[in-house]
Each structure stands twice: as structure tokens, then as C-alpha cells.
């Protein structure tokens, strides 16, 4: 495992989301700060030279996508390093800062999907269009779709899922490559949700979840398939699945729908449970231990390539499958942790925010150029 971490001090950045060539940051004083990824790369190179180029490769160019020749060479030069940490002086890092123009309250989650920013807030659920084409004065237009407190937002299959606690799970469906503004309620209680691999998984708590089968059709834009409807399906257990896995009496800390399997964090382990999907059912089939040693108190988890980034109350730990020892990223307590599994370019990247600053963490299984 190789880890590159870049820390940008200060700036009061509460949350961050990277999308295409831009890093969007939400600040504690409720402003949207916008950085160009290219400027961050230039700053890394200017401050840390070859180390900075290697860091930029790791963070922003999964599988070398979009990397310069200099970045590739630097990645090779640092192939034997287990990790590098850079504290980046962001004093002169250019950015734009705008107000969203809506009374959002506290932002609890954010997502950029199909070129649109979504904010889950205690003042509701907002869709925000940010037009950067006008240069130094971006045009921002915000629309509130849901008035209830929204705790989390997720995207997939052309749809957006807003988890609104006791106000339920609301889905906004794709309509001719535009996500519809009107949300449809599909569940009565939702803390967060995941969309993908034929299902919408609704988490009613950290340890409880339900499955919805996803109905899809070809996108009118010709880009893949889009979600058109969902229906709740029952869950069953195969006889081959040991009773102690996904047991209601067990010490399940957290569950996560991950690449068509359910990851279960319980009893100090991470278990991976395969799921067989049929029209009316999701059957938990076989389980295996994915990671043999986890922290006792896990706040959140994100998948980063072949690894899992686990948020604890003190830092972020990176876990690998098997017996490899966890690696620590000394972020201190964080507010947000996010990865970008659906991005080709940022697949190895995690962003984390907290009092210690904005963290960009690149994780790869093998040092050097990843294939």
C-alpha cells in the first residue's frame, strides 16, 4: 500500500467534493469555494518538486489518466516509498468564492452528479447549478427540492437519493438527462442510501438496511441506463450463511453496499457478504472475512480502489484486505470523508475535512504506476 497525503492548512473548509477539473469546498461560513485542480497540481510541483509531481499523480490521475510525462516519471521515482506527506502552503492558491443564495442552514452532505451540486442540509435538500464559464464571477442558482432536513445524498443510475431521516427516502429520477426537481418518497425512514448494481439500498440506521430492486431503461441520451422505479424486495439468508453473520443480535457497527456485496463491520472485523439478486428478493449467500482487524469505533467508511478508508474519532485508517496492517493518516477528528469510486480519474482519491485542514489522500495498492 502506498499513501500520498496532502494537507492544506486552514481555510475553514467543512466539506469538499472533487468533480472533473474542479475542487468544490463548502466553508464553515456557508460559502462555496472553488479551486482548479490544475492550480493545486502546480502548487504541489512548485513547493515539493518531484515529490509534488508524484503526489499529484497519485491523487488526481488514477491509472495515469490525464497525467503529464513528468508526473509519470515522478511516480516511478517514488515507487519504493510507502508514503509521502506534504503540507501544502495554500496562501497563494487561487480560488473563487460565492454564496449559494439560499438559506441552507448547516450542510450535512454534498454531491455533484450530472454537473449539478446537491446539498443535504438541515434546512432541506438543494440543487445548485454553478456556471463557471463566466470566469471570475460564477453564476449560481439554487433550488430547494425538499424542505425537510436531509442528512445524506447519493447518486447513481441517473437518479439522486435524498435521505431525510424520519421524513423518509426521496428519489429524484432522471428525465432526459436532467434530474427531475420533484422527489418521490419510497421509504419512511432513511439515514443514507446507496444506488448501484441493480439495487437501491436504504439504511434506516447504521446497522439496519432494506433493499429496493431498481427498474431501469436505456437513457434517452444514449448514456447507459437510468433508474425509472424501485420496489421494495424481501431479504433472505442462504442456508450456507453462518448465523453469526448479519445477526440481529450481533455487534454490527456499520453496513455498506459495496460493488454488489454487503460489507458488514462487526466484532472487530469486516465481513463481505455476497448477495444474489432476483426480481423479488435479495439473498445473502456467502460471507468471508475481508479485513481481520478494525478499530473498535468506526464512524464512517469509504471505498478507495482496493482499500477501505475508515474514519475514527481521532484520524483516518486505511485498511487493506487480508492481514496487511492498517495505515494511519493523522488527520485528527474530521467532519467529512469522501471517495470517488465512480470516477475514472479520481478512483484512488479520498478527500477529508476537519480542523486540521483539507486533506487529499491518494491510496494505491502498488507503489508507482498502477495498471
Amino acid at each position: 500500500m502506498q499513501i500520498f497525503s496532502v494537507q492544506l492548512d486552514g481555510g475553514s473548509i467543512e466539506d469538499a467534493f472533487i468533480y472533473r477539473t474542479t475542487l468544490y469546498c463548502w466553508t464553515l461560513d456557508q460559502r462555496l469555494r472553488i479551486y482548479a485542480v490544475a492550480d493545486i497540481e502546480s502548487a504541489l510541483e512548485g513547493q515539493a518538486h518531484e515529490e509534488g509531481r508524484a503526489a499529484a499523480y497519485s491523487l488526481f490521475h488514477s491509472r495515469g489518466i490525464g497525467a503529464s510525462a513528468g508526473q509519470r516519471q515522478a511516480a516511478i521515482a517514488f515507487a519504493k516509498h510507502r508514503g509521502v506527506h506534504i503540507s501544502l502552503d495554500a496562501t497563494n492558491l487561487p480560488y473563487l468564492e460565492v454564496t449559494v443564495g439560499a438559506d441552507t442552514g448547516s450542510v450535512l452532505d454534498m454531491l455533484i452528479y450530472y454537473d449539478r451540486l446537491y446539498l443535504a442540509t438541515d434546512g432541506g435538500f438543494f440543487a445548485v447549478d454553478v456556471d463557471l464559464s463566466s470566469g471570475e464571477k460564477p453564476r449560481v442558482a439554487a433550488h430547494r427540492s425538499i424542505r425537510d432536513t436531509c442528512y445524506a445524498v447519493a447518486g447513481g443510475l441517473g437518479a439522486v437519493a435524498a435521505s431525510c431521516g424520519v421524513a423518509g427516502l426521496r428519489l429524484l429520477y432522471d428525465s432526459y438527462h436532467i434530474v427531475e426537481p420533484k422527489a418521490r418518497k419510497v421509504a419512511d425512514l432513511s439515514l443514507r442510501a446507496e444506488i448501484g448494481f441493480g439495487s437501491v439500498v436504504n439504511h434506516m440506521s447504521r446497522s439496519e438496511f432494506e433493499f429496493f430492486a431498481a427498474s431501469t431503461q436505456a437513457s434517452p441520451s444514449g448514456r447507459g441506463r437510468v433508474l425509472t422505479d424501485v420496489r421494495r424486495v424481501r431479504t433472505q439468508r442462504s442456508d450456507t450463511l453462518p448465523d453469526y453473520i448479519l445477526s440481529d443480535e450481533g455487534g454490527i457497527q456499520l453496513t455498506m453496499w459495496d460493488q454488489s456485496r454487503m460489507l458488514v463491520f462487526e466484532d472487530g472485523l469486516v465481513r463481505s457478504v455476497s448477495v444474489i439478486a432476483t426480481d423479488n428478493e435479495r439473498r445473502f449467500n456467502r460471507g468471508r472475512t475481508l479485513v481481520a482487524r478494525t478499530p473498535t469505533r468506526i464512524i464512517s467508511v469509504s471505498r478507495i480502489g482496493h482499500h477501505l478508508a475508515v474514519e475514527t474519532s481521532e484520524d483516518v485508517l486505511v485498511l487493506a484486505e487480508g492481514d496487511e496492517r492498517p495505515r494511519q493518516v493523522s488527520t485528527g477528528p474530521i467532519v467529512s470523508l469522501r471517495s470517488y469510486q465512480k470516477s475514472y480519474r479520481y478512483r484512488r482519491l479520498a478527500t477529508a475535512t476537519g480542523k486540521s485542514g483539507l486533506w487529499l489522500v491518494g491510496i494505491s495498492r502498488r507503489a508507482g504506476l498502477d495498471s
Partner: protein
Amino acid sequence: MSGVQRSMTSSGLLFSAQPSKSAYLSRRDHWANAAGNRNKWDHSCPPPCEYEVFCAAEDAGWRDSRPQLWGIKPRLAILGLEERCLAKFPDPPNALDPWHGYPVSAMDRRRDLVHRPEPDLVDRWVAAGVIDEWDGARIKRGKV
């Protein structure tokens, strides 16, 4: 806490009512060395500390829209086992009943929202300087 009468009962340590303070029962089943599955106060926060947390909550009116007071220590210091940093004091069912409370976390099983203070109260804590904006943001996101 001078002048506060304390008496041991079968349920726990009772702090008597004062002119401006309610009676409070530190229940045994929430003590650090208690058996059972109830949330427990940390060893560093024995009953007198627990009572102070309650008094601070009552004096400041740390409430949200639900029928309870919320307890917190400055800078989000740990007050309960398993790193819990918040406490809940449900309104007594009868006016003459003593209060009691226990540590909570938004990560308690199936208590994700029930054990999460509402944002307005968190903002009051930040404004009062009890916690900083970062800890406030973490509480609002259910990370505490």
C-alpha cells in the same frame, strides 16, 4: 456543590433539590462499573461530575424540541464509556420525580437520530463557547 445534600438510595446517589436546582438521581445502572447493557458514565465522570453536567444543562436550558435536556462538557470532553461525549436527561414523568440521565452517542445502536442533538442547540453550544465550530459540525453529522 456546597450545600447539596446527598443520600444513597437503592437506586443510586440522590442529590437533593435546591432553590434553583432540581433533585437529581445518579442511577447505579449507569455507573461505570455497573453490569448490564445500559450506557455508562466514564470512570473520569463519577456521580458528582454527572450531577455537574446535569446542573449545567438545567441552568443553561440546553434543550431542543424533544422532552429532555442535553449534557455536554467543554471542548467535548469524554463523559461516558466508549468515548461518548454527550448526555441525555429525559424530562421526569412526574414533577416531583428526580431527574436522571446517561451518556449517549449518535452511534448507539438504532439511535442515530434520537441521540443526535438538533442543530439549533448545537449552534447555541458553539455560540456559548462550550465547543468550537468543528465539533459542532461533527455533532450535526452524527459523528459524536
